[in-house]
């Protein structure tokens, strides 16, 4: 089969690879019909995630058709159209039994601090991902769901991570009616978080980024106020000024490891890989939020230490809430919101690349060319 393959930092190609096989009785093999490149795939692509091996196939956002199932699979049959959460999880360990599907203990030998993620390095379990023609899906009775007939393929693939994670980020903010919510990052997850913050009753939503075309999308599509941090000498002061010098009630970090805006932080993290992530957005969140406020983090960070302004968080009495999103827990509610027209994930898709041209897809997305916001991959 054809699959995207990692060849080292900034380098990928399409290779002919053996088709995946059933390795466990509850596995399914899924023929991918649509996949996406996620902002967090760029951390892998840039070589920032420890134990990303040459030869791995990325892709944790994908949908497809069940091709084969293992002998213990009860809920799926060949031919079913399925959407697959980015989490690989067993459904039965201590954490899964409590709904912490992103923190499963039974699927990742390489790290106890991380759950399992498709196509996301050995640190996340060593699974191949869905930017390929076929993919192995462990625990087929637990993770995948049949795609409802009324749902479009593009909405379905965006629910496997980005839309669910954005909504989850707003949820982690514990928003109450009238709250001022600042969202750092106007990428797909940030845009979805901004839209979701309104559903939870936000009074103001302010989106911060440096890419003007994305801020434009935040204004027109997510109904948000925007601040281009490159236009301010100090974005924290601007956030204080905009909130009557109180600070925001809630700040959401939808940027993660490759945050930009401070040369030293960005270069030590993204280029020299000496930090687990550049915590620029997180530090702005800590300083820009009000005392007693809440910070929500679902931008992805690696396991190496990051230079976070922890003292400010402590002295301000902040609540820091964070996790990888337990995707399938979000779905029933998000399906309702999509049906009601409250959320429309596919409206932010800007680019669609065939699998053969995926190297160009990654470059266009990584270099933010051509107004790129969300890129889909068609096998």
């Amino acid at each position, binding site marked *: 089969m054809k699959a995207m393959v990692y060849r080292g930092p900034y380098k990928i190609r399409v290779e002919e690879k053996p088709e995946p096989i059933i390795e466990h009785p509850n596995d399914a093999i899924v023929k991918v019909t649509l996949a996406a490149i996620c902002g967090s795939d760029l951390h892998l692509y840039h070589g920032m995630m*420890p134990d990303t091996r040459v030869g791995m196939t990325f892709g944790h956002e994908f949908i497809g058709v069940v091709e084969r199932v293992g002998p213990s699979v009860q809920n799926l049959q060949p031919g079913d159209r399925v959407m697959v959460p980015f989490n690989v999880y067993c459904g039965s360990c201590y954490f899964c039994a409590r709904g912490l599907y992103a923190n499963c203990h039974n699927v990742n030998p*390489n790290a106890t601090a991380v759950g399992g993620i498709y196509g996301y390095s050995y640190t996340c379990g060593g*699974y191949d991902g869905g930017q390929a023609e076929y993919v192995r899906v462990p625990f087929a009775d637990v993770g995948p769901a049949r795609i409802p007939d009324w749902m479009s393929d593009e909405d379905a693939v965006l629910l496997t991570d980005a839309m669910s994670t954005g909504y989850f980020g707003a949820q982690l903010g514990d928003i109450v009616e009238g709250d001022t919510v600042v969202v750092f990052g106007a990428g797909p997850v940030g845009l979805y978080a901004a839209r979701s913050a309104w559903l939870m009753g936000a*009074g103001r939503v302010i989106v911060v980024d440096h890419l003007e075309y994305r801020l434009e999308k935040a204004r027109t599509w997510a109904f948000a106020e925007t601040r281009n941090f490159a236009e301010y000498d100090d974005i924290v002061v601007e956030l204080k000024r905009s909130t009557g010098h109180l600070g925001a009630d809630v700040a959401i970090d939808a940027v993660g490891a490759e945050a930009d805006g401070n040369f030293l932080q960005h270069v030590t993290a993204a280029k020299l890989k000496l930090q*687990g992530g550049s915590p620029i957005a997180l530090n702005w969140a800590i300083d820009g939020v009000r005392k007693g406020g809440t910070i929500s983090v679902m931008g992805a960070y690696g396991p*190496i230490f990051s230079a976070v302004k922890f003292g400010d968080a402590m002295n301000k009495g902040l609540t820091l809430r964070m996790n990888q999103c337990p995707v399938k827990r979000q779905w029933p509610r998000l399906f309702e919101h999509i049906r009601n027209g409250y959320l429309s994930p596919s409206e932010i898709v800007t680019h669609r690349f065939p699998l053969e041209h995926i190297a160009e897809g990654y470059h266009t997305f990584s270099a933010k060319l051509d107004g790129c916001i969300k890129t889909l991959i068609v096998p």
Partner: protein
Amino acid sequence: MTYTADKPALAPSSDELRARIPGWGADLDPKDRPAVPRERFDRAASGAHWDFPDRQPEKEPRERSIEHGMLPPVFGTSVPLRGASGALRRYAYARYSEGRAAHWLLLVLADRVDAWESHLASLATLRPDNPITQTGVLSEVRHHPLASRRGTRVDRSHTWMDPVLVAGPWALVGGTAVLAVRRVLGRGSRRRR
């Protein structure tokens, strides 16, 4: 205003927002939010029909974090350990917990070694690594490289590093090879004289 008890009145009223924004307030009640409370004990909710999953066969020794009490029942098999990078990785897993910086820094080092080993090995195949096609830079032509970089983008301050990071190692190898060849040839010609 901040220095007194009331919150600065800067937000529009809820009625105004409800009229303007689709779905505003639909999830005002935390009970409608799907992952609230964060932990909810329910064995049956996930669809798992086992207490402990069947074990996936371990076809070759699988490295694992020493913070695990045993090999978890299911794991990825994308690219098993191999070569010098594999030895580094095996050592990082066997010796240091995830709590130790050495664990992660060794894994990062192994990633660089892996890329090197793989680039070199690819030279002996029918399809050697090609930094031009593999970086996707050819897509620049069709995607407005100049217009896309106008404006307030802050990443312009370090974009120049990307080609250095990507091509630098290749240039280094090429340069070293050229020097080595010249040296060998030079020695040969001197001897001939």
